[in-house]
């Protein structure tokens, strides 16, 4: 579903990704961990070209997005993204936040899009908040709306960039619960997170990144119980 070969990314002269190779299969749930500044967000953002790769190939759902000729907007319709800071549209209510892209991008009739939006709101447990403005919701509720907004485009892949890091602790669980049910339904997911419990429970694979490289990867059990690389050991000993 996702194939990354020799991915390099520079910001000016700062080298952030240093040759990433990675294959992600359909329905796989991959959790990316690593110290702050190791390039996790940049890697994720290269998968839907919010950052443009400096060198290397990224193929998503059969389309090479590193090819300048590719229609990135088409690809992004199939790749949802959830941000650390939610990034809901503050000037429209929850229902419109979710229905906007299906209407404007896919050309669905407003009523059909709102019907889909309501179904998704029910799914994330927020049907009662359809008319609320994002500002009126708690962080956990906003992030659940953000997930529903991404799902409204019926993506094949979901990218999560530290979706619970900006939340108060008591709200982390409700967001993770939505993500878990998504994983159970077979969504292909790439999740940057520090929630090791989530990784243990739902990840098919854990990737440890450091200094722009994949240092080690494997099943969650193997990575957490028996890390091979000293840098993985050092990182895990700090956070576990």
């Amino acid at each position, binding site marked *: 579903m996702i194939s990354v070969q020799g991915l390099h990314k520079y910001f000016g002269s700062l080298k952030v990704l240093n040759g990433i190779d990675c294959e992600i299969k359909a329905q796989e749930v991959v959790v990316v961990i690593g110290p702050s500044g190791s390039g996790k967000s940049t890697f994720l953002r290269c998968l839907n070209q*919010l950052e443009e790769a400096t060198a290397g190939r990224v193929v998503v759902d059969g389309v090479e997005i590193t090819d300048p000729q590719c229609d990135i907007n088409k690809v992004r319709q199939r790749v949802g*993204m959830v*941000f650390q800071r939610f*990034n809901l549209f503050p000037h429209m209510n929850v229902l419109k936040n979710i229905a*906007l*892209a299906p209407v404007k*991008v896919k050309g669905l009739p407003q009523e059909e899009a709102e019907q889909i939006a309501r179904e998704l709101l029910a799914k994330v447990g927020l049907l009662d908040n359809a008319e609320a403005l994002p500002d009126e919701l708690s962080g956990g509720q906003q992030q659940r709306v*953000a997930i529903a907004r*991404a799902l409204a*485009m019926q993506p094949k892949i979901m990218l999560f960039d530290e979706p619970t890091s900006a939340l108060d602790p008591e709200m982390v669980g409700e967001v993770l619960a939505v993500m878990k049910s998504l994983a159970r339904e077979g969504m292909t997911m790439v999740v940057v997170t520090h929630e090791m419990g989530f990784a243990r429970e739902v990840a098919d694979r854990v990737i440890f990144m450091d200094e722009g490289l994949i240092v080690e990867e494997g099943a969650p059990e193997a990575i957490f119980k028996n890390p091979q690389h000293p840098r993985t050991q050092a990182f895990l000993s700090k956070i576990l």
Partner: protein
Amino acid sequence: MEILNLYLTHLMKAAPALLRGALITIEITAMSVFFGTLIGLVVGLGRLSPSKLLSRLAAVYVDVIRGTPLLVQVFIIYFGIPALLTQLSEPGHTVRIAPFMAAIIACSINSGAYVAEIFRAGIQSVEKGQMEAARSLGMTRGQAMRYIILPQAFRRVVPPLGNEFIALMKDTSILSAIGVEELVRKGQLYVSVTYQPFPIYVGIALVYLVLTVTISRWVAYTERRLGVK
């Protein structure tokens, strides 16, 4: 007391002419606000365009207009360009432009540069994550601008736009220099006959004050209605 009576008499006599002048001032301001906002939106978006050429062009426009006095811009449009066109056309043919027309063109071009900067700042004040969220859903840059960025930017630019329109209204007073019969010019004409500058110019100041206070009230009302924070 006697002098006060005299002044009031003059003011009453001048009032119809001054009100006609005020109407011209309002007309020129309104037209220039309209066209200036259009120009400002285009130039402001051009300034932020990914195209280097567009963004350079927009920057040059803003720098040239803001770096030269409005009076000189008015003279170039009223005297300069018609003279140039006259010299370029066949002998005996004279190109002219009506003062009112020249006034609106000059004020729109001038205001456009200031409004462009206001829009640019307003657009840039919208968090980067908004554009990213919109693009991640498959929207084009244009769609993201139209549905996500501009609606948020518009709310934030209402207060500075209000200030710009007030400044523009006051600046139209220099149009008396090319004989546009706006408020100040009407006053000058009256004073040149009666030699009563004090009541007339104070009266004119009061009319401007009423107009500018009206604009700022209207801006404050719009802010409240849009929920500007």
